[in-house]
């Protein structure tokens, strides 16, 4: 935990969406421990509903899911709150999907399996950037 990230008090809100519960189970405590507020979802419909009434700083979403997929979640989130940063995590990483997600405004694209530390770093990077902007 760096000093900057806690500089102005407000906790970062993270939404995690993955249809495999294990991913949520592993990520949630890791982020909580760093002082983030975390909500997890295993169905994109309920995550989308939540996004409508609450703004999140960061969204971490799986790509391939029943119902709305990660790209759709990305678009929907950006439509509601353009400043939301989105990290796409997927086990089906191809250059094409990576390109597409960047084009649609994803902040980062992470292939599963990934190291816990890598995704924490990624979020920290976003946080520093956002804190920097608001200062």
């Amino acid at each position: 935990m760096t000093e900057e990230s806690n500089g102005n008090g407000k906790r970062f809100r993270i939404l995690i969406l993955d249809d495999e519960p294990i991913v949520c189970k592993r990520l949630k405590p890791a982020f909580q421990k760093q002082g983030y507020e975390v909500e997890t979802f295993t169905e994109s419909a309920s995550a989308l509903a939540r996004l409508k009434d609450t703004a999140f700083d960061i969204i971490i979403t799986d790509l391939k899911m029943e119902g709305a997929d990660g790209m759709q979640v990305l678009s929907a989130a950006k439509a509601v709150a353009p400043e939301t940063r989105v990290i796409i995590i997927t086990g089906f990483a191809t250059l094409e999907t990576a390109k597409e997600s960047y084009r649609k405004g994803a902040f980062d694209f992470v292939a599963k399996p990934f190291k816990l530390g890598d995704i924490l770093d990624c979020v920290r990077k976003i946080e520093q950037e956002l804190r920097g902007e608001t200062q």
Partner: protein
Amino acid sequence: MLRKFKDVLASWRSKKRVLPFGVHFKKFQSILERNNRILELMADMGDKSGGEYVFDRQYILDTAEQLDDMVFKLISDLSILTQSKNVELFLAFEHIRQAIQEELDGTHAPSGKSYILPLRELGHDLSEQAGGKMSNMGDIRNRLGLSTPDGFVISTRAFYDFMQQNGLLALAREGIEAWDGQDEAALEQLADTIQERIMSAPLPRSLTSQVLAALDDLARAQGIRNIRVALRSSAWGEDGDASFAGQYETVLNVPRGQIMDAYRKVIASTYSYKAWKYRLVKGFHEHEIAMAVGCQLMVESVVGGVLHTYAPHVADGVMVANAVWGLCSPVVDGDAPSDTLVLDRAAPYSLRSLSIADKQRRLVLAPGGGTEWKDIPEGLHLVPSLTLEQLEHLAQAAMSIERYYKRPQDIEWGYDASGALQILQSRPLRFWAAPLNSEPQLEDVTRNAEIVFSGKGVVAQRGVAVGKVFLVDHNTDLTTFPYGAILVSRYTSPRFSRVMHKAQGIITDVGSPTGHMATIAREYRVPTVVNTEVATSLLRSGDEITLDATQNVAYRGSICALDRFTLTEEDVFEDSYEYRLLRRVIKHTSPLNLLDPHAENFKPSACRTYHDITRYIHEKAVEYLIRLSERQEVQHLSAPKRLETKYPLGLMLIDAGEGTTCRPEVRTATPEQIASIPLQEFLKGMECADMWCMDPVSVNLGSFMSSFTRTFPTLLASPDEVGRNLAVVLKHYMNINMRLGYHFNIIDAYISDIINDNYIYFRFLGGVTEFVRRSRRAQFIATVLEHFDFRVEVHGDLVVGRLKKLSCERMSLRMRMLGSLVGYTRQLDARMHTDKDIQEHAEAFITAMKHFLGARYDGREQRKRQAFSNTDS
């Protein structure tokens, strides 16, 4: 006549398609390549099980599918190469593939066929067959090395057969489906009916005889005439995430004649109203129910009780033990007053407070079976039932168990008449309460703590450790390692497995997360960070630290909040379905059983894992290529030549074109006749290493050289051990497959004037020598290869080094170095006495190489400088 016969023979022969050697060799190379990819994929699965990675079920499915595919193609390759059907290999493959598929499908019916499972063979891997509680007891006994009463388990298979043959599973399922979910009396009625049916139903035919036989074996082994046992429930999931505490039956002090009735009683308790209700509330499905029954020697404890390793409602950082004279069950059932002891969670587990109860009676074993109350002599009423020594020992054991399960534990224990501590049961303690508001936020605590290091090295096993540093080097007598300490060392060493049950955590300066020590740390679930580079320079013995091996940070001081956060985490990674699934799949892929090609079991039908199959195929492919050239069944190929060297290399050369200057038909070659550039260099290097070994004085390398001639006689592996090794050579190319003793070496190299085509691939897979030395050797090789600019990956025994696109001269020097390395390494086991030797040998070897390669040698530094002016990839 003779000529005619010969002609006939020749024409008959030519009907069999004679392929050019190049075609065979291409297939052979594709086998090697696939072989490597399979090994790397298996190593990758091992890495993922450490806890640093987030993976999902899809990863396991994908990896298993890739492995299936590659192993299948590997066998097909061999079939094409040797033009044989390899039915046995395909069958072995199919068995393994199916076993993996069953794991993936979660076919929940018990996989094993046996009714009886000895406790000494149990562990969490067998929880499907032995149930939750007893597989935990297996871990505690077999992994953590603590004492538990000896015994066996009557498996879930027995439960299935019993229930099914009496139509009881269907009865329960249909009954619960028909239940409206409201009418409690109806559920109670259903429960009663099933329990009654269980108590009177006939048992499967051989079950009774098998149980009695196991019981008699146990009695014989223990030298007991009138054996008495405790029968304990061990359902799927019991003592796991849902504790089921007190839901199922335990029957104590059962004599031989009553054992099957007691068994029925435990089985029937599966369907008691309260247990059924508990499952329904917890969301268990009817098909998720199976009951194994533990059958353990009855321990007449002198003092017994319960210990909770964590008691935040009492005080921060404490454990609480309750103890009574006699059997421990009055503490569990709460029907007798007990002594209460509050002690530190951290070593040396000092007693903080003691309140002595007035203990007037104790529960003992009744002569006819069951238990009975006995009065306690008055003089003992107010005497503490546990000594401080016993308490400390109990605390040590309890913390080992907690650390292993990553959860506070609720432990039933007893000290028997001989004074030995017996662990009777251990289940997770769960805390639902949110932390108090007055407590500072975790991130504030960690922010204010002094960081010793952060983000250094690699997490080999996740978790949090709070304790005092104990620095260890190769001289340290590990028996002095204190309970609850954090082991800090320069190197990783599998030797540390001896103290893993005592260590809270492990930190090393050097090492790989896929090395042997890391593997063992995972077995013991000790939070471990390796390769930090700085740990031993920043930490001193006695320093109190907190290691967070999930975020990879070490803090100064003990941060109990962090410990608490982890202990109260909702899910333990190691308990997750995906983790267990990955471990189960790995059991079918990675262990190597086919070790010795000369052994009788070196055959397709003995292959039990994918590793076995790849090992077998590699051996056969090498053998085939040698025989192929011997029989001269390929076009334009000279006879295989035995390379004549001073040292027993057992190398058979196949000259596929300008690789030697020998005449095609001769059967031997000398090193002088080698024309293949890579092999020439390789042999020069090898001779050099050999010279050191035999005559240390002639090279001025001082104590380094004498150290190994002292410990090692001049000659080494006998030719028998060496077997037949293969080298296929061309002018600019060589491919060596070498088995020296029990380890394997593959080198594939192309060296010419065209820089972009040049490469060396080096693979080393350790043999079957002692664990410790094997891993030291792998580390040694990796260090040396890295020094010479190879891109190196180490996974346990497997070392892979790759080098590309250097000039012919630089490539040649490195080939020569490899010759020395191989020559040197084949005897290295015996010389790797301590972990310190790794670095010393590496340095000495590199120094020796400088002498040997002379002025033309260019080390890593020089290469780095060159990198600026060179765009080579």
